[in-house]
């Protein structure tokens, strides 16, 4: 063999005991590649590709959990979904939640990171307090916030009373329950965005600040002219990740209302769950899943186009 792939220093005197040694060099590289890929690809095919395809098939049937039905119904499920007011309401709730939650989740994270990056003492404490809620399970944060939002004895209304305001039935009132879920979500997940921003800020070389400071730029000026422009890629990434994460709303909305479906907080994922595992209409549930998937793809395309346009400018 004369290819570099199998060139060996003869001095070692070892027998060629590499795997696939009987195959030719090109072919051997192929085989080795597939050996590296196989475990992941098998899992990928079984638990991602196949479910996607099978789900598309199911969405054209009236399959139920018990195996009854299962006949082909064409586009009937999709027609029903697009004419279903509950479907549209859950889709709207999901989009509304995404709008309400993304703005504070980006801005508060930026504020936290900017403050921590200024080098005030107590680094580990700030990081711990902002990131810790992210470590809690949805069950746990739901418990804590149901307790805080309790209309009679909750801390939220105690604060309102102390400020001389009227108490609110946070989770029981359809006008405020989405807001309560947004507040809990911001508290719960802002720490992740905070860490992303902090990492991006710590990649900005110190000399840039030193040079600006010698030129007489104050902290505000430094933030506006040095920090913010260099955070643009991080901001784009955080926005994309956050929108995709917010659209998947289910756990906390479902649990903070004790599993009860409220028309103002039912997310699209919750409706997929209800159609499948409460009404046992698997076919219909699969169809709603693909309507939701279409929404995600549309959002992804819009974001891709928007970021490309930014780059061209």
């Amino acid at each position: 063999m004369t290819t570099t792939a199998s060139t060996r220093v003869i001095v070692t005197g070892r027998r060629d005991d590499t795997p696939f040694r009987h195959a030719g060099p090109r072919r051997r590289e192929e085989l080795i590649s597939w050996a590296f890929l196989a475990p992941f690809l098998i899992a990928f095919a079984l638990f991602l590709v196949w479910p996607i395809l099978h789900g598309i098939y199911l969405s054209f049937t009236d399959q139920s959990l018990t195996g009854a039905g299962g006949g082909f119904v064409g586009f009937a499920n999709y027609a029903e979904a697009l004419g279903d007011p509950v479907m549209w309401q859950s889709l709207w709730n999901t989009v509304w939640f995404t709008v309400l939650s993304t703005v504070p989740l980006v801005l508060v994270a930026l504020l936290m990171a900017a403050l921590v990056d200024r080098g005030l003492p107590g680094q580990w404490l700030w990081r711990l307090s902002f990131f810790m809620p992210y470590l809690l399970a949805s069950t746990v944060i739901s418990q804590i916030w149901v307790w805080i939002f309790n209309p009679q004895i909750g801390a939220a209304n105690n604060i309102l009373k102390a400020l001389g305001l009227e108490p609110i039935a946070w989770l029981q009132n359809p006008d405020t329950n989405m807001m309560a879920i947004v507040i809990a979500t911001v508290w719960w997940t802002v720490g992740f965005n905070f860490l992303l921003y902090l990492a991006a800020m710590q990649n900005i070389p110190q000399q840039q600040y030193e040079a600006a400071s010698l030129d007489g730029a104050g902290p505000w000026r430094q933030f506006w002219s040095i920090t913010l422009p260099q955070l643009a890629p991080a901001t784009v990434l955080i926005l994309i990740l956050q929108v995709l994460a917010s659209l998947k709303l289910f756990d906390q909305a479902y649990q903070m209302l004790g599993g009860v479906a409220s028309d103002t907080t039912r997310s699209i994922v919750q409706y997929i769950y209800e159609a499948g595992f409460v009404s046992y209409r698997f076919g219909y549930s699969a169809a709603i899943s693909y309507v939701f998937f279409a929404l995600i793809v549309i959002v992804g395309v819009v974001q891709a186009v928007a970021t490309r346009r930014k780059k061209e400018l």
Partner: protein
Amino acid sequence: MSTATLSPTETVTVPDGRRTRRAHRPHLPGQRPFAPLRVTAFIVLIVLAVSWLLPFLWAVATAFKTETDAASGDPSWIGASGITSEAFTAILSQGNVYIWAWNSLITSVAITVITVAISAGAAYAFSRLDFRGRRWLFFVIVASIVVPPQVLIIPLFYEMLAFNMIDTHWGLILPQVVAPAMVFILKKFFDAVPIELEDAARVDGASRFRIFWSIVLPLSRPILASVAIFVFIGAWNNFLWPFLVINDTTLMTLPVGLQTVISAYGVQYAQVMAQAVLAALPLIIVFVIFQKQIVKGVATSGFGGQ
């Protein structure tokens, strides 16, 4: 970028252009330690940190109250009857909590180990090896990052029925090990590992598997550790899939188990809060131990905002 010009009165050492990974920024020349802006920043930071810690501390305080005090609506931190651990005793005597914690631990560890292992293998092939269809296969995997797992609950449930894996830990674990985003992140990292190291080893006759095992993986320990931590957090806290696939109380994970007993408890606030605190404790300990690693991991996992 302007270069620093030194006035005769001050000497400034400008470090070389290496990225400085500082714990915090040192004072800049001309910056007074107690400038009004610095003090304001400090106050805002304290207010934010306190508001982020308070809800959890309030939960801890409630867990140490008697049920009567917890339900009284008294806003004080310590109940009228003083501090008591009876809520914890009540929960821990039920026995289920231990088994749920154990289930959470073994399934999360299994998901983490399998996910990291298979993703690292695939990422290495995409980064270093040449095979037919490499480009489009990588594109398909990256594109699949946007598929929300919640969309697949119905077909996955069917699949688990077919495999006889409903109400088994394998049924909980296997669908969670596919993480296309990890393949993407790890490939980016392997791309940055100097190829000369591998070439030298290959001249010495080391096989690809040997190189991967003894050179690439040890070099990637920091990134592997940090992605592993994030996979673990996700698996430990996952709710929807375990909630659907497990019905047997003795096989439940903590988040699902807690959810089932909350309705049974009615309004036993102290016990509910004690459960919440117990469930959170392991991860908080993990974070405190690996804090540097996690923060660094976020920075190196392609999120560094280059």
